[in-house]
């Protein structure tokens, strides 16, 4: 899961980035609106964490811009203002959720999970496919009721594919979910992870579309 953090405060922005990577997210952090716009043009994100009090372009303006461009990535607003008006303005502009500073890192990730889940059109907290049950909150996978040991990266790929059942996910899209900018991307890793997942959950789960990517059928 790749997350974009837009936060002008150095200490906080860095903190969120580190905190999210601890949880297995690939997190990119930018300090202002124009950098955020650039990041959104070049990468695909599963969610955006947006601070409202940004210099130059305010958080709300940026959000308006994002939505105007037809980008429906779920957005959670971070705000130092706890006034109801600010939250209403944020939600009305197109935010999916908000969090008032200071917040709990765990609450932030829980809300991110919920947002990503809803944006995938799913209301249940777990993803089910046949005998396989994936729980993003606990990062656990059950196959036929048996807990299967799975690495964080494998989990991310599995989740991405299951969230987008019936859609072909390109290799690069899956890579984006694995690595943030600072991370070193190793070649062939996606193939290696898919191979491991197939070994643990069965070869039929993920189909390879040659030259394009991978798909989990509906």
């Amino acid at each position: 899961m790749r997350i974009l953090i837009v936060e002008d405060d150095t200490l906080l922005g860095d903190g969120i980035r580190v905190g999210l990577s601890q949880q297995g997210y690939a997190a990119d952090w930018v300090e202002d609106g124009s950098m955020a716009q650039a990041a959104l043009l070049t990468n695909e994100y599963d969610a955006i964490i947006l601070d409202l009090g940004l210099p130059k372009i305010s958080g709300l303006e940026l959000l308006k811009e994002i939505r105007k461009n037809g980008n429906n990535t779920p957005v959670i607003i971070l705000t130092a203002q706890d006034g109801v008006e600010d939250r209403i303005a944020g939600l009305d502009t197109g935010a999916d959720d908000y969090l008032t500073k200071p917040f709990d890192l765990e609450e932030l990730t829980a809300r991110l999970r919920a947002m990503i889940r809803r944006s995938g059109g799913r209301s249940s907290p777990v993803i089910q496919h046949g005998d396989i049950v994936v729980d993003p909150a606990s990062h656990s996978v059950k196959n036929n009721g048996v807990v299967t040991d799975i690495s964080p990266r494998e989990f991310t790929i599995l989740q991405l594919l299951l969230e987008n059942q019936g859609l072909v996910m390109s290799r690069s899209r899956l890579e984006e979910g694995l690595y943030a900018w600072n991370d070193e991307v190793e070649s062939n890793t996606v193939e290696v992870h898919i191979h491991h997942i197939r070994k643990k959950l069965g070869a039929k789960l993920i189909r390879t579309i040659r030259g394009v990517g991978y798909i989990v059928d509906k």
Partner: protein
Amino acid sequence: MTSSIRRRALFIILPLVTGIWLLSAYISYYNTKQTVSSFLDTQLAQNGQALLAMSMHELVEQLLLSETKNPIAETVETSLWQDGYPQENQIAFQVWLHNKTLTLRSKNAPETQMSSIKKGFDTVSIFGNPWRVYTVSTTDKIINIQVAMQISAHNSIAKSITERVITPLVFLLPILAFFIWYGVNLTLLPIKQISIDLNQRKTSDLSPIDELRAPKEARPLTAAVNRLFSQLKTAFDTEKRFTSDAAHELRTPLAALKTHAEIALQAKDTAEQQKALRHVVQGVNRATRLVEQLLTLARLDPDTGFTNIRRVDLFIAAESVLSNEAHLAIDKNIEIGLGGTRGKFVAANYDAICVLMRNLVDNAIRYTPRDGEVEVNIDRRDNIIILSIADSGPGIPEEERSKIFNRFYRSLGTKESGSGLGLSIVTRIADLHHLNISLGTSRLGGLQIDIEFTAKDYEGTSEPVE
């Protein structure tokens, strides 16, 4: 004297009314006495004339009948005016022949002539009492009549008339007192109403009193109260905005602190944990600084201003500030310099001026990259002393300059974790000293801030005050 308007009105008006009333009573007594006197005199004269007429008739007859030229002296009970006044014994008369034979007299009249005057009115003393005597004679001076009335009769008439004038006062005074009391109450009613309204207000309600409701005389008071209200409201609003700003500004550092603390808790290795904890310390330092700056700003109350304005040598103040801030410059290998000479006197609060300089120097060092330069200069141009702080930092673009004095404004892209309050403090201190601040580009390439003071010379002394 008590400050009750009602009581004061009573205390002033009642004695005044009573005094005027008594004075007019005395005047009317005096006038009445005059009138009564002249009226009674006329009556006395008429009585005398009547008596003379009667005596003439009787005596001439007697004189003609008897050869004796000495008619028997008679006394008559005087009860001429039976009912009321003048009372018995208050009127007396004598009938004389040739001014030497007393032929007839009232019982209360003496046997000697009452008055020595030949004709007209006289006031004499008979048996120790004052009497009014009227003397009248026939044209041939044979019969001589003296009629007299006790003067006390005059007085008692005047007194009784005056009494009738005064008596109502005794009843009217309490009524007057009541009306004064009532009238004052009625006048004060709007003020009372205003005070009731004020009592019922919530503490937060500082809306002005409707001045039109107060009596004209009380308007200066309500206007003053309203003025105070509006000042209080401004102060409260500023306070409220400040507190809310401060609370919001603290939320971000707190969020950062919490995040890094959580990272430290979840860290899988010591290095990661150490890094997160270092960030926590960094965050605490920043929050501490923010709180300190907030307190400094709160202490610079724009209403009270500075009480302790003295003659301050700016150069000496700058020396002390720079020596304290030098370690920051040394840490970043920044060259720091102070230009100018001692004896640049200004009228200022020494501590506040030090805070102002410290903030500016601190900012300059903070935003100047390593191996840079910061220069403080104190120059005199005519009557103006200019404190300028220049640095070799990135400077501030023209369009951003107006914003940097805003509270909590932080220049973008700096990795420095300022509170955003330093320049607000500088502005506040400058405002309180009526100083002019201008921003420009320094010859070192960075920002230059100039602050203009009015020079304060003391009879040519150039000795610094420390």
